[in-house]
């Protein structure tokens, strides 16, 4: 606990929606006694305990590891994906980022490809579908060579790791005015294209994943870089450029 813990009173405006068919609405809550040492989700836990105590239904939101790595938590907080802190997931955001008396608006991810299931929980299975379209190396268990026979320059390995750090939370989509999934897709295509293991299928992978992304209703990239700014893992938009390169290579070849 930090030495200067304070207790906050907050005005919360939270999106409540019964199920996928319900129209949904913002509902106001006042919550007192929120410790600045609590995480944002612990603040919501506190609200939910209060609601349950009053016999009301708690607010549904996705979360799991609460360590910033599973990618389950989401939330638009005052219009920002994962809230105000840079490179921080909602579960790692702490209430010391807010002030006593603040009004906090909490909404779900908004994107055509991510329908709201209830309150703040959305369906992100479209991301699994994109990975199914080619986000892997086609290698079955058992036929791998000795790992050290594949030499990979440290720089490539590091860049691949930078891209692979994506947690699939979809903040990039939620913060993009076009609801584009290019940072997510670009990160996976880059990771595999940077490594020799993934190069055999690199172009085909790019073509297939991009096609699937379009089919699922994600928008196009217009270079606003909101995705990069909101990414809790600092995934760089240069990954989109690398994706475009692989995509173009495959497009040129398929025409010739």
């Amino acid at each position, binding site marked *: 606990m*930090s030495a200067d*813990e304070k207790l906050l009173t907050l005005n919360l405006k939270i999106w409540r929606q019964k199920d996928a068919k319900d129209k949904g609405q913002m509902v106001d809550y006042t919550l007192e006694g929120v410790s600045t040492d609590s995480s944002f989700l612990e603040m919501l836990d506190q609200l939910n305990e209060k609601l349950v105590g009053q016999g009301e239904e708690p607010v549904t939101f996705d979360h799991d590891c609460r360590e910033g*790595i599973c*990618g389950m938590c989401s939330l638009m907080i005052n219009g920002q994906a994962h809230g105000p802190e840079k490179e921080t997931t909602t579960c790692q955001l702490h209430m010391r980022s807010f002030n006593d008396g603040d009004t906090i608006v909490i909404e779900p991810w908004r994107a055509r490809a991510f329908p709201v299931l209830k309150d703040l929980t959305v369906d992100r299975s479209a991301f699994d579908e994109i990975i199914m379209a080619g986000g892997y190396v086609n290698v079955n268990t058992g036929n791998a060579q000795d790992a050290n026979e594949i030499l990979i320059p440290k720089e490539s390995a590091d860049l691949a790791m930078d891209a692979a750090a994506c947690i699939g939370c979809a903040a990039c989509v939620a913060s993009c005015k076009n609801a584009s999934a290019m940072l997510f897709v670009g990160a996976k295509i880059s990771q595999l294209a940077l490594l020799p293991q993934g190069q055999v299928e690199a172009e085909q992978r790019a073509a297939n994943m991009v096609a699937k992304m379009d089919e699922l209703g994600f928008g196009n990239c217009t270079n606003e870089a909101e995705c990069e700014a909101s990414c809790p893992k600092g995934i760089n938009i240069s990954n989109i450029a690398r994706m475009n390169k692989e995509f173009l290579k495959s497009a040129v070849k398929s025409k010739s």
Partner: protein
Amino acid sequence: MTKKLDSKIPEGPVAEKWDNHRFKMKLVNPANKRKFNVIVVGTGLAGASASATLAELGYNVDAFCIQDSPRRAHSIAAQGGVNAAKNYPNDGDSIWRLFYDTVKGGDYRAREANVYRLAQVANNIIDQCAAQGVPFAREYGGTLSNRSFGGAQVSRTFYARGQTGQQLLLGAYSAMMKETAKGKIKSHTREEMVDLVVVEGRTRGIITRNIVTGEFKKWAADAVLLCTGGYGNVYFLSTNAMTSNGSAAWKAYKKGAMFGNPCYTQIHPTCIPVHGDARSKLTLMSESLRNDGRVWVPKKQGDNRPPGQIPEEERDYYLERKYPSFGNLVPRDVASRNAKEAIDDGRGVGKTGIAVYLDFADAIKRDGEQAIRERYGNLFDMYNRITDENPYQVPMRIYPAVHYTMGGLWVDYNLQTTVPGCFALGEANFSDHGANRLGASALMQGLADGYFVIPYTLGNYLASEGLMTDKVSADHPEFDKCMKESQDRFNRLLHIGGSKSVDTFHKELGKIMWERVGMSRNEDGLKKAIDEISDLRKEFWKDVKVTGTEVGINVELEKANRVADFLELGELMARDALERRESCGGHFREESQTPENEALRDDENFCHVAAWEYQGDETTPLRNTEELTFENVPLTQRSYK
């Protein structure tokens, strides 16, 4: 009557057992594999790797997870690394040494044959993951990088920054998605297993409840693989994810699968300490930090000066003092217990006094801040976000937290539970870590079970038992009966109409568990725990308040179902801890210690696995045993001095 269990360990020298066994096992021919349906519950390292590999072989796989995607399973949070005896650094490692270290680290309570097999296939895991495109850390020459990790004197840990679990899981997940695209795996997300269906002594399927709709469903299969992780959340506060739970294993237990060594829990020494009542979970800091951080507390009790004002000679670097050869790198159980001792002695630090320091000042002086940032930057940032303190300037405060459960469903050498057709993989089983798991061994075991063990042993089961023709469909009345029972249970939970929230009960259970079945246990406390948990369970079923309805998403109802199971499992853990009147690994019985307060094993009376058998809700379960023999690693009192 208590039984002696047969672990089906193959004949021959330990180094040849697995090879011999693989040859002797029956095979399912390629054309017949597609006639078998396999259910995999859980999509962490064990579940995802098993699903992918079985699908590649040709089996039809139904994979279930409770999250919104298989990629979210809690294996993703593992930080440090994965062990293998590649001996790339040329520092004296070998399969035999990895085997030896794991048996010793487990305080001689694991099965030798399983551990040897684990050490053998570990090398294949690294190859497989590299082939999948897992971005392991590399040296400048392009080869793989290794580091040393808690409890090992060689550098055998492979890693991907501080996110090794994430990268290995995403590798297994991508293999799973590859097979899902081909239609060989059907991935069912937000679908929770609520019962195991057993017909005439054989596993035939599961019942699930859909988390989005609330709908119950019947699923038939020729075998069920439980890859559902551990039950550390019985303590409420742990490093597990919020939805990690013990319910699938518990349902199997109630259908006849015995529970092995439930009292073996691992308390991890380097977690961020608790603050206040709002805390919902504990965050682990990778123990790789102990490679460079020095653990200390003030020598004087109640010394509340800021750390920078406590001079060197007034600090007690207790791990270095007591264990000069291992120092800060002693195994987790030893490090945790020593932290507790220092704190119980009134020498804890920070505002609450429930923490010890992990200090990087010397490492920063030696290697420079930049080097430390490269090694641990993400961990330091995480610490800073949670505590609002800068660990480059002030020492971290750490405290032990529940992290892993070595206990789990009892399985034989083939990973089969005592219910034919029901297998348990990864943390969900009990088999490879004995009474204490070494760092970087959990990822190794999850993937070993899924990629390299179950593909063989499952085939043997399917081929040997006439299951090509002997099928049971979901129309069998037993499925309807199980589904009805599950529906009734959820309905009952929903209509108790009590006054206390599910979390209130969960927190209360956690408090009992942590105080009495935690780092240090004694007869009196364990007896009290059994009574207290039993009372709490009765109160729960009278007074829990579950809001909402049975239709649609109802998180309170989901939690209530899991906590109801924890209220039974917690009692079994206490019972197991009470009966094991020795100290071993993470299980420390105060009555059994050396004059230097180290854990004292009792090999004469407890060199065995305890496998608990369900006898009905109102009857004390039976404690069966499996004798452990040590032919290759001689039994000695563990010492890290």
